[in-house]
């Protein structure tokens, strides 16, 4: 059992407010991803949990026990660093043994644990090599092995896949997921890569400017982003944001701007009920929730194809709508035609997936 709890955790670097009184609970066995752009406070949070940085205020509880006054080595936490932090003068075997020495583990058990860890990571043949003789993927496995061999209560990972090439990254991502699910070690994982966060996390914590913007499952974050920042940060290509004004006609609610006037239907319209006529809003729609048609249709908005970015099975279209650029992403087969640059096409927003944000507060309109 290891449940991690952060309570009003606060951190300053000189005059920079790195982490601003955050609260967070990571349940036992959960993999929690701290996600955000660089400088958002995610790494500072991790370093406070590890004990390398003293929080300016607040407390960290592991299993209900406050640990922020403890020396890093007394917290029973292991960490995989972005650079792997391997010692150039130690072999793989020595790396595995190194954390066991201060723990005063008897010799025969050290042997046994090294073997287990080598088995687990499939590293038996590499035990006597030095880090410089290993590939970056193997180096990473050493870093993971060294962290796991102590059987920590909490596992911290700081952008562990950053130094790997694309191919290896996808492979190691799956390995990490499998490993964490097998061992059920409570894990905090820091990354700036939202694809990684989506793939790995039981829970994603989106951070920005030292604040937690949203906590939720990958699906929740994707489907119901709490504000403009989260909405724009999750998803590739990012969500389209279009300024518009709320207008109430006789029978329907309309979003209007200089390029289109879009009547909206019941579920979406209901969210605008409390708002005044003329309220400034931002319409948010993900590229994958825009249907592109070659023929005009009722309610579809005419645009012009500006750039085409073919992917393996999908097509990303940059569409010009007056001075606006809208990205759409569609399956090549479902599209039904081959768009060409300069062609006139009509787009339709899937209203179940359209978000409305208040332009002042940047908050998403509820529901």
């Amino acid at each position, binding site marked *: 059992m290891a449940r991690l709890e952060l309570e009003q955790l606060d951190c300053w670097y000189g005059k920079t407010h790195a982490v601003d009184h955050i609260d967070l609970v990571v349940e036992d066995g959960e993999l929690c991803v701290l996600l955000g752009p660089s400088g958002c406070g995610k790494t500072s949070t991790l370093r406070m949990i*590890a*004990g*390398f940085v003293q929080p300016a205020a607040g407390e960290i509880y592991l299993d209900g026990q406050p640990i922020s006054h403890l*020396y*890093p*080595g*007394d*917290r029973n*936490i*292991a*960490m995989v*660093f*972005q*650079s792997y*932090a*391997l*010692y*150039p*003068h130690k072999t793989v075997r020595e790396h595995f043994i*190194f*954390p066991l020495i*201060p*723990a005063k583990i008897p010799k025969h058990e050290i042997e046994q644990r090294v073997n287990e860890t080598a088995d687990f990571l499939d590293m038996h043949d590499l035990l006597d090599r030095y880090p*410089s003789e290993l590939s970056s993927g193997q180096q990473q496995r050493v870093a993971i092995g*060294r962290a796991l061999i*102590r059987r920590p209560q909490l596992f911290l990972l700081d952008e562990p896949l950053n130094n790997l090439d694309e191919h290896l990254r996808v492979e190691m991502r799956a390995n990490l997921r499998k490993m964490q699910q097998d061992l059920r070690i409570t894990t905090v994982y820091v990354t700036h890569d939202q694809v990684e966060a989506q793939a790995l996390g039981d829970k994603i914590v989106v951070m920005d400017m030292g604040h937690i913007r949203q906590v939720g499952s990958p699906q929740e974050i994707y489907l119901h982003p709490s504000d403009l920042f989260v909405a724009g940060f999750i998803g590739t290509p990012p969500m389209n944001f279009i300024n518009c004004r709320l207008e109430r006609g006789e029978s329907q609610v309309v979003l209007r701007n200089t390029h289109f006037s879009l009547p909206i239907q019941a579920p979406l319209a209901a969210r605008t009920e409390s708002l005044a006529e003329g309220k400034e809003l931002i319409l948010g729609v993900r590229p994958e929730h825009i249907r592109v048609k070659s023929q005009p249709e009722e309610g579809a908005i005419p645009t012009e194809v500006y750039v085409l970015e073919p992917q393996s099975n999908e097509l990303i279209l940059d569409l010009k709508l007056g001075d606006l650029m809208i990205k759409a992403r569609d399956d090549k087969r479902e599209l039904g035609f081959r768009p060409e640059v300069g062609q006139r096409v009509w787009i339709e927003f899937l209203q179940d997936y359209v978000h409305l944000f208040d332009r002042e507060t940047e908050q998403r309109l509820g529901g």
Partner: protein
Amino acid sequence: MKILKRVLGVVLALFVAAMFLFPLLWVVLASFKTKLELLAVPPVFIFQPTLQNYINAFNSDFPMQVRNSLIIAISSTVISIILGSLTAYGFSRYAIKGSDFLQFWILSLRMLPAIAVVVPFYLVFRMLGLLDTHIALILVYCLFNISFAVWVLKGFFDEIPLELEEAAMLDGYSPPQVFLRVALPLARSGLATTAVFCLIQSLNEFLLAVSLTTRVAETAPVGLSKVQTLMGVDWGLLSAASVLFMLPIVIFTIIVRNELVRGMSFGRMK
């Protein structure tokens, strides 16, 4: 063109090396020559070598002076490395108030011209009754060596990624253990470089040694200078003694040569 450049480079390097090595070669040859061969014009390069100069050197005060030199230089180097590495590590890893000023202050000791402090040192050590003792020279050399060691080693500690130490901290190693088991092994090329420089500096030092010692703690450079003055100039003996005196440094340098090359090129660790 490229080949020409390379050839020119090699020729230049050989020329420079020859310039530096020629005096050494001269001394080594001279140490095996008789007095007559030594003074021959033009100089002879092929001759029947003799060991007489070395035998003479061993029968003089020279072995004792070498012993003094080694005791003083090694003690001073060891003390300087220990204190210097601790101090440098502190400067490198901890936020210390006025750190830059303190570091410069320590380095400035190194800039002190020895001649300026000879008299005060002489008076102080006379008062303490430490004239002509090993301790006096060890202490004085530490003054120069520690400031040098702190300056050089700080650079090496700065280069060790903090994450390597943090990983050890998380593994349960206390700060002193982290220093001993992570930082020191990783800074070993820096330690080797510093040690060689401290050692050479202490072995070569003349001014303070000649002022603070008379007989018992006399070091080799001082002794060699007296060979010149007292018995006319016995160039053969002087050359043999010089060769013998060079040996410890040569041997030590060969032992740590790999570290030394890395250290002097300040190669990044990977």
